[in-house]
């Protein structure tokens, strides 16, 4: 069948229409496939973050959950600062394995290297925040699910770095769970056992003195 010039144009237009129609479908399909690696890559791009938080601490010790609130500051790859405004004003700064605690005018410095269990958890937290998979996988096994809009990452101690430490408070039920949207983590749940857990809800915030760089989508 001989194609006339008109037929060619029709075919071209049909093709163009088809590709345009198909494109959003494929894009949408891509958008729903958000993996752990995507999260980590996205987190690696975050250099600074400011956020506000509220936290609920449940414990065997407490008669009722302890509610606290304040602000958070993260700077890649290993600096995390927590300013608790209530009920016990404190300023906590974790730089790598060095923990500085300021409260009531007194400042205490601890090296987490002396507390292997705490160092392990801090390493995992840093790992997720900075997108460093190896730092997390050294002591935890990861399971990731969800989409870019709502994902969750579960960390369970893998028993790899077995630490025989009198101060190790981890149990078989220990876990850390992160929830977020894109590169922004909006909830962290740390659980030691059924009775010992804390849930921190995080919202983005502008830093008081510096422009917010925020999370990058």
């Amino acid at each position: 069948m001989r194609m006339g010039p008109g037929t060619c144009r029709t075919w071209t237009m049909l093709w163009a229409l088809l590709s345009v129609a198909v494109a959003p479908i494929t894009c949408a399909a891509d958008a729903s496939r958000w993996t752990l690696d995507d999260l980590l890559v996205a987190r690696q791009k975050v250099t600074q973050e400011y956020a506000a938080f509220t936290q609920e601490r449940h414990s065997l010790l407490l008669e009722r959950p302890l509610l606290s609130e304040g602000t958070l500051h993260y700077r890649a790859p290993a600096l995390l600062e927590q300013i608790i405004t209530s009920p016990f004003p404190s300023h906590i700064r974790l730089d790598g394995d060095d923990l500085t605690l300021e409260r009531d005018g007194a400042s205490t410095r601890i090296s987490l290297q002396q507390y292997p269990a705490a160092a392990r958890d801090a390493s995992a937290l840093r790992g997720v925040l900075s997108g460093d998979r190896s730092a997390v996988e050294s002591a935890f096994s990861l399971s990731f699910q969800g989409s870019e809009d709502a994902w969750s990452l579960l960390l369970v101690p893998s028993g790899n770095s077995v630490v025989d430490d009198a101060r190790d408070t981890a149990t078989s039920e220990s876990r850390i769970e992160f929830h977020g949207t894109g590169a922004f983590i909006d909830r962290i749940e740390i659980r030691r056992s059924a009775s010992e857990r804390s849930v921190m809800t995080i919202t983005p915030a502008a830093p008081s003195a510096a422009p917010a760089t925020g999370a990058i989508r």
Partner: protein
Amino acid sequence: MLAQGLRIDSDLGLFLPRAHDREAAVLVDELRSGAAARTLLLGISGAPPARLAELSRTLLADLRGDARLQHASNGSGGLPRALGEWVMENRYALTVPGVNAFDANGLGRALRQRLADLAAGSNLLDPEQILRDPTAASLAAFARLAPPGQPTKRHGIWMSAAGDRAMMLLELSTDAASLDQQALLIRDLHALFARRSDAGERLLISGPIAFSVDARRTISAESRRLALAASACVAVLLFAAYRASSVVVLATLPVACSLLAGTTAVSMLFGGIHGITLAFGITVLGVAMDYPIHLFSHAAGRPQHAIRKIWPTLRLGLLSTSMGYGALLGSDFPGLAQLGVFAITGLAAAAAVTRWVLPHWLTGLPAATRQEPAPVRASLRALLILVGAALIVVAALDPRPWLESDIAALSPIPEASKRVDRDLRRDMALAEATHLLLVEGQDIQQVLQRQERLLPALAAARAAGELAAFDAAARILPSVAAQRERLAALPAAPALRTALEQATSGLPLRAARFEPFVDDVERARASAPLEPFTARTRILDGRLGHLIEQRAERWIGRVLLIGLQQPADLEARIRALNLPGTDFVSLHDTGSRMLRAFLHDGGIRALWLGLAIVAALVVAQRRAAVPVVVAVLAALGFSVAVLHLLDEALSIFHMIALLLVLGIGVDYGLFRARGGAPGERGDTVHAVRTCWLTTLAVFGLLASSKIPVLHTLGLTVAIGVSACYVASMVLVHPRTAGGVDS
């Protein structure tokens, strides 16, 4: 090597001077066992940090269960559970509570802190522990127990600051005490590492045990090498000198007897022979060789006659050399006393064999007519004397220090091993104490109480940055008196419960939940104080054992001062406290002082000996003794000058070598001065020259040794005997038949 069947020690401590005062004893102890003497330091390098960490963990896992090890750590272990529980049990005895820690206000403050930590997620005590210990006294106790100086950690294990070396610390059990077992362990460690590692990854092992094992291997290898090389050289020289293989064979007889006699005597007197002594002893053979040489040179077909002629001179030479070695008998170094015995008996045996056995067997020696060499030309003599004198003057003007002042330089450990050890210690950030406070008391409690009065000043110095860290027994375990005070100050249960009610009001806590705390306090109030080295404090024995010990009837506690910036200031402040029984010791200064004292002592000894030798000579030879003495002194002066110019700071080992040189020099001088018939003089010169060459060969080989002490001995004697030879040729003239030739 006749070493089979002999007990050979390798305790390097035999070559440390005996300590005469407490400070010196402390120093020797520190040198012997800076960290525990049973500790091995391991360093793994040659890979990125993550891989090093993996290797470290694998190795540690492999070593678990090895019965030879009491303890193995790479920083990955946390606080041992047993220690954690013990500290928790005894926390109120071990720590000083804050002011009003147990009243409502104090408890309220403490509870708020615990809650704040809980909220922040920075709680180091878990909830169960908080119910027992709301004031966190256990944390304070842990802090006091931690030894000063912790290495950095990466990937959860100890690593050097640069991250290029993973560190491990092994403590051997007391069962693995023999050097053989330790050597086996080190070999197994290397084998284990080889199985687990890839190419390019290295394991370095250091520590007193590694030194001893290494030293034994090096010493035996060196001794073997030296013995073989020396024998070969000497055989060649003898053959060249006498052109008869029977001579070479016969020469071995007095030497062998010398070795046998020496080792037997030392074994009988000391119960064993030190490896280094044996190596030194081999060098004695270089001197023992002289006796048969004199016989061979003079024999010329009539050995019996020859020996009788030269015997007086030979005997005098033996006497003077023996006196030289005799100086060592009373030495402060046990190893050197062994050497003295070895040498004297060995040389006596060699001389005896030469006198009474050898002449009977000496047949077939070609009679050689040896011309007496022309006397040294006056111009050459003048030149030599001038050069010698000039060298001495140059050396005298050289500003470098003459005497060795660093006691570490006496160590028989090769430089390479020292370097490895330095690197590993630095990477391990092992805190080395440079200064000590010695606190003495009639019993352990008195020492602890005295130390407690020092602690505030030390804590202040640390806070001010003048002191990096300190370690003391009283910091770990307070005195019984202090414990009683604290325990008595604890509130009774009813008062505590009331305080808790008040403290928890307004907080999301219930006072009734803190019964475990009340129980613990009640129990602490009723308990007896902890005493060191008893069943209840067994867990602290390791830590305390190094810091406090009994000596004679008294107890001595060491306060280790690490990183002290201004010793004089702290010393003044401590003195101002007017504490009895307290001494401030600088380890480096004490070492230097010991060395100076010893050198001074040795110097005096040498002087007396020198005078004794001169006296002996004068008595024996009268005026003929003068040139001999002059020659020997000139040679000694020249040797010292050359050593100084070669940048060798004189230490005790140089002194010993020079004593040997003195003996040999006297020997050469006496023979040179002997005179006799003209034909005979040629023989004498031949003998002296052959002696010189063989001694030079043996000690020259020694100078090539990796072991610093052997190197020193070899170098000094090689230079010394050469100087003696030249001096005796130039300054001493053979006696003519009628009188003295000047």
